[in-house]
Each structure stands twice: as C-alpha cells, then as structure tokens.
C-alpha cells in the first residue's frame, strides 16, 4: 500500500477552555492529570519543524482554547517561517486587540471563531458562560486586521431553527467562510445525545437556509454544511480515511489519527517525546491499524463503497457497537443500524422537555 504524506496537522495545545459547551469534542476525562501535563514549547517547536519536513501544508492551532497558551505566538511564528498555512481555531473570548495584532505580525494566516447561536442569551446558554458579545467583537477585530474570517457553528436541536438568522449574522460579520457542522456524537455530545438530536423537519429547513446562502453567495469562500450522519444513508468518510490526510497532537503530546481516537482502548499512541512525526505517520501501529481496507469486516469487506467512505467512523463503530472493526452503524447496511434508529426515537421522545445538559466540566 502506498502511504501518502499527511496534509493537515491539528495541534490541540490545551484542553483548558473558559467555555462549557455540552457537545465539546474533548475527551470526557480532559481534566485528568495526564492531559494537564501539557507539552512544553520546545516539543511543539520540534513538532512544527517535523511537520514541515513531512510535507504537511495546513496547521490548525486548536484546543480547548489555544489562546490560553501564552507561547502561541512563538509557535505561529515558527510555523509561518516554514511556509505552512496556519489557522487559529478559537472561541474568541480571549482574542484581545494586542494578541490579534501580534499574531498577525507573527504570520498567522487565518482565524476561525465559533459562535453557538444567533442571539446572545441563547448562545451564552449553550456556551455555559456569557461570551457572545466578546465573540462578535473578536470577529470584527479579525476582519479589521485583514485576516480571512471563518465562523463555525455546531448545530443541534436548540439552534437549528435559527440557521437562517445564524447565516445572516455571519454575513453581517463579513465572514469569508462559514462552517455549519451538525453535532457528531462522541464524548460530551454522546452523553447529551437525547437533548441534542434534531428532528428531520428542523434539518430540512436548515438545509434550505444553507442552499439560499450558497446560491446568493453570502460568503466568498463558501459555506461548508456538515450533514448529521445519524440521518444519512451512508456514513462519513471519517477524517478522509484513517491515516490518509490528518495527524492530531493532543495536549500531552500523544499523536492521534483523529481527535477522538483515544476512545478506542485497544490502540496505543506514540508520544511526540518518543518518536518523530514521520515515524508515527508511516510506521506506528495506531496509524496503520485502520488504514486502507484490509482490516474491514462484512458488510464493508465486500462493499463497493469501501474506498469512498472507508466504512465510516471507527470511534463511532466502537462506541455504539462495541467493536472498532464493525461497520459504522450509521450505514443502513450495518447489522447494527437499529441502534441509530432507536437513538433517533429516544431523541424525538424528549422533544417537549426543556433540555437538561451535562455541561462540559472537570471531574471532581
């Protein structure tokens, strides 16, 4: 099998974050001591130079809230010098004019800001803290400094009805690009699944609002709409295929094929302190475990879509069926597809009740 070089590195600088979104993709145990021991600057700088030699073209600084790392500017500067394209993915509340200007000087290419809804009270309700006004101020700052601005929004039952208003807000903020991603049910989102699952009617209206924004070209660099896979016939080609495009470094230095890969207990991940990115990408067991198609069971093994969706998401397969080599149960051909249908029903049943979220929080 020919292994292509990775295109993207996702640098999760920290799992600390002032917000408490109930769909956060950080692990449930993000506050464990293992994640609190964050990688020191020197290791990150080493990783950045290894990423450049490996041919990585895109580097996303994310978290948690990456701005909580006071050495972010040093990392951005080092990455910019290699020519890698750098993005900051932030909740926006900590983006001060000083830091934004400094990041611009250091050569940061692009900023993504998340918002939770189109209205302050509703956005703050999901974020778990007052943050909406600061986010808008941050978005304006980003534009003023001449960065391209992406706004990203995670969609679920409590904001899908305002997709149109959300898109209008993004337009007012002069976003160059918008990412609307329906919630994916791992980690915190899986624990809150019954309160977050939308109705098919909501999804249909949201789809129409997105189609209008696309047709009217609200955003010069486009709108990405990530479909809710629970309602699709086929699963997503998760990460564009395991070990095909992306590497993730978690705050403690573990190198993963995807942000939620730690949910698969059979895998052991190499830490940056113990191996180079090049070795980890080409040789390590974790990156080769689900690469290509040889690991597949039926029905994927004999399916013609195996190189289109790669059998879907490994983490979702494990979390829902108990087997990491199973077909993603989102697929209508999966023998476990009834699990998805049941979850949909349960979600619908809770429709009338006011939501009770488990907000993201540190374990006692």
């Amino acid at each position, binding site marked *: 099998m020919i292994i292509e070089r990775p295109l993207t590195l996702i640098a999760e600088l920290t799992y600390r974050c002032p917000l408490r979104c109930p769909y956060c993709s950080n692990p449930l145990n993000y506050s464990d001591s293992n994640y609190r021991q964050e990688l020191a600057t020197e290791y990150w700088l080493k990783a950045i130079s290894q990423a450049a030699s490996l041919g990585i073209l895109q580097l996303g600084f994310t978290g948690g809230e990456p701005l909580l790392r006071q050495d972010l500017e040093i990392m951005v500067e080092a990455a910019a010098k290699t020519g890698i394209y750098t993005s900051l993915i932030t909740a926006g509340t900590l983006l001060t004019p000083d830091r934004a200007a400094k990041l611009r000087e250091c050569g940061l290419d692009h900023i993504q800001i998340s918002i939770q809804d189109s209205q302050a009270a509703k956005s703050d309700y999901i974020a778990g803290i007052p943050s909406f006004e600061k986010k808008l101020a941050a978005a304006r700052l980003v534009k003023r400094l*001449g960065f391209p601005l992406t706004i990203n929004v995670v969609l679920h039952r409590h904001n899908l009805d305002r997709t149109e208003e959300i898109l209008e807000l993004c337009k007012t903020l002069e976003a160059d690009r918008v990412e609307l991603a329906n919630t994916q049910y791992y980690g915190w989102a899986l624990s809150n699944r019954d309160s977050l699952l939308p109705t098919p009617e909501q999804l249909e209206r949201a789809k129409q609002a997105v189609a209008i924004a696309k047709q009217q070209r609200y955003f010069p660099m486009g709108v990405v709409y990530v479909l809710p896979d629970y309602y699709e016939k086929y699963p997503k080609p998760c990460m564009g295929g395991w070990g095909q495009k992306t590497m993730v470094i978690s705050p403690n230095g573990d190198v993963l094929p995807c942000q939620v890969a730690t949910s698969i207990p059979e895998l052991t991940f190499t830490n940056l302190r113990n191996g180079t990115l090049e070795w980890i990408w080409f040789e390590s067991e974790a990156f080769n475990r689900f690469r290509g198609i040889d690991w597949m069971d039926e029905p994927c093994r004999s399916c013609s879509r195996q190189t289109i969706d790669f059998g879907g998401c490994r983490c979702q397969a494990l979390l829902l069926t108990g087997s990491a080599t199973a077909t993603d149960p989102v697929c209508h051909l999966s023998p476990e597809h009834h699990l998805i249908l049941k979850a949909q029903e349960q979600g619908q049943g809770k429709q009338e009740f006011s939501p009770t979220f488990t907000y993201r929080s540190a374990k006692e």
Partner: protein
Amino acid sequence: MIEENQIHALDYLGLSAGVRLHWSEVRQQHWLLFPEGALALNSTAVAILAQCNGYHSFEAIATALEKQFSDVKESDLQDLLSYMMKRGLLINQAQL
C-alpha cells in the same frame, strides 16, 4: 467565442486575503494555500497566478502566457480564472 463582458470580469484579479502560493520542497510541488484548503498547481497555473497581482488585464495575462507556453488556449485561462473566482480565491481588485 468568449463574451466581451465575461472577459472584463476577469481583469485586474488578485489573490484574496489569506490566499497564497507555496512551494513544497518535500513534495516538489507548487500549491495554492487558503483557509482549510490546498490545491496542487501545475506550471501553467503557477505562471497565471503569479500574474494575478491586481494590475493586469485579462488580455495582458493572456499575452504574457502565450510567450511562455505555446500550447495554452485563451479558454483554458478563462476557465482557471473563473474557477478560482468562484471559490473566492481570486478577486477583482479594480472594485476595491
């Protein structure tokens, strides 16, 4: 035949904010990099995009290109520029 007004829409193009060219030594390949994306470029595309600095008309780019590559058609140039504009990677800087 290419329509006159379509041509003028392709005058004075420049790379949008946050879009840039990159040569990858490891991959021995030119790229166009932009928010959440990367396009591999062949030598013609690199030559065209290098001309997109906001000061050249479509005709000027076409003429410059003809000198460099004998086999590039004007319609290929138009296709590439229109595609890049649709994706928001190039903008007409005369309007700014």
